[in-house]
């Protein structure tokens, strides 16, 4: 068993180097496939994070309370709101706190507010939605509550954001599907070429009396080795491309979505094993596919 494994590995190692042309073609096509899948994985992850954070900013409804609504009444309203599934949290914001926020936002022009005789801001409840899609419903519900003066909710902005993010996510999905089809075609063509190159070799081995496993072992190891090398090349490339992308775009991304790209190191740590496993599986799958036709005879 261990001897067989050692045999398969040494044979595979030698053959990968001797069949340089074939190995390079396979490495190229597997790397290309990984690159396509990987780049789009990165892009989708970042799009999702960006759209989620964009949604986060609009998932609060400000409920302004009437002057005569007491803190106790506010607590009762809070409780009734919290009982709804569509609401994730409710925070009470006193008029004093609201003024503080206001001053913060005005920054060095805050002195203009000093002149005000009394605080014109109302007490309010900040309602956080579980999902942006329920906004309209909760908005209506809040308006009908007793003790509420007004409700602020960015309806139009939310609608726009929802259409844009849906569009982006669906677009990404379509492109990914398209690219997956392309890469499957590329890899299966390479496999076909390898099959034809290997057909005669397998036939000869069978004439000499090799069992199917004796032939399969080294070929399988060879496929996995090629997949592993491809994954290594891929990871190197993606690291370079992604670092460059972060460099170029992270400032704009900050402006647009107030979120940064997912950190490079984090991405790499999570992806190394996934992509090595993926590369090896593609290689193994290719080998099995190319052997199946000739070993059953």
């Amino acid at each position, binding site marked *: 068993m261990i001897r067989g494994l050692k045999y398969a590995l040494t044979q595979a190692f030698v053959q990968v180097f001797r069949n340089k042309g074939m190995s390079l073609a396979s490495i190229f096509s597997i790397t290309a496939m990984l690159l396509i899948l990987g780049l789009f994985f990165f892009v989708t992850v970042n799009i999702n994070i960006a759209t989620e954070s964009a949604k986060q900013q609009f998932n609060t409804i400000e409920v302004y309370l009437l002057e005569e609504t007491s803190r106790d009444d506010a607590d009762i309203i809070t409780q009734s709101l919290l009982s709804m599934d569509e609401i994730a949290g409710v925070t009470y914001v006193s008029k004093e706190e609201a003024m503080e926020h206001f001053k913060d936002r005005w920054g060095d022009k805050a002195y203009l507010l000093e002149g005000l005789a009394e605080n014109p801001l109302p007490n309010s409840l900040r309602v956080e939605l579980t999902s942006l899609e329920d906004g309209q419903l909760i908005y209506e519900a809040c308006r009908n509550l007793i003790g509420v003066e007004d409700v602020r909710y960015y309806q139009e902005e939310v609608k726009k954001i929802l259409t844009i993010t849906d569009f982006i996510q669906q677009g990404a999905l379509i492109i990914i599907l398209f690219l997956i089809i392309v890469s499957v075609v590329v890899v299966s063509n390479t496999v076909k070429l390898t099959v034809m190159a290997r057909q005669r070799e397998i036939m*000869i081995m069978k004439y*000499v009396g090799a069992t199917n496993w*004796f032939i399969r072992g080294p070929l399988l190891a060879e496929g996995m080795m090629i997949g592993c090398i491809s994954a290594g090349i891929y990871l190197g490339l993606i690291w370079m491309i992604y670092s460059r992308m972060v460099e170029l775009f992270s400032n704009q991304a900050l402006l647009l979505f107030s979120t940064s790209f997912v950190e490079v190191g984090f991405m790499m740590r999570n992806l190394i094993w996934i992509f090595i496993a993926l590369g090896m599986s593609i290689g193994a799958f290719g080998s099995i596919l190319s052997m199946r036709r000739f070993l059953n005879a």
Partner: protein
Amino acid sequence: MIRFEGVTKMYGGNVGLLDATIKIEKGDFVFLVGPSGAGKSTLIKLILKEIEPDEGAIYVNGREITHLSNREIPPLRRSIGMVFQDFRLLPNKTVYENVAFAMEVVHSTKRAIRRQIPQVLSIMGISDKADKFPAELSAGEQQRVAIARALINNPMMLIADEPTGNLDPDTAWEIMKLINQINRRGTTVLMVTHAKDIVDRMGKRVVAIDKGRIVRDAWGGEYGYDD
């Protein structure tokens, strides 16, 4: 050693072999002759269980092989050394590795491999080619490697399908002498050939096939027809 009893093999409407009965004893040297398409390769493929007969029984070493399971085919092939017109060497392995492959297949130890391969390469007169790849060798040298590989595990039988077909007359005769030597040491030989001069000169048993039928089987025979 090998026995065919009323073996018929059809390829759709084409005749491969028709009701063939033949017996080859241990130590025999048999030439299999006949025009192109007569069924010579079909007979060999049947022995190696590369194809299945439609009718009849085939015995190899006293064992009926038409009902062997897939798992029993590799051992059957290991008991027979095969040599072909087109050599069938593994292109990405050196001469040494090509011969070693036949030993690795039967799980020989590294030590046994290291001991036996130089011996057989030396018998075949290709010791100095051990580290060359097949593409770097002449046709005659490639056929010597193929014979070395066929013999390395001491098979009881050597089957050669037109082994001299791609060789010039002098080289062909060299190879023929090698095969004769192998037979004298006790290995049964079945050789398909179109080389009239070789058959006539060797004076061995000749089995002639035509249109799938065995039409002649004579000791000390001659090639017997013109191509």
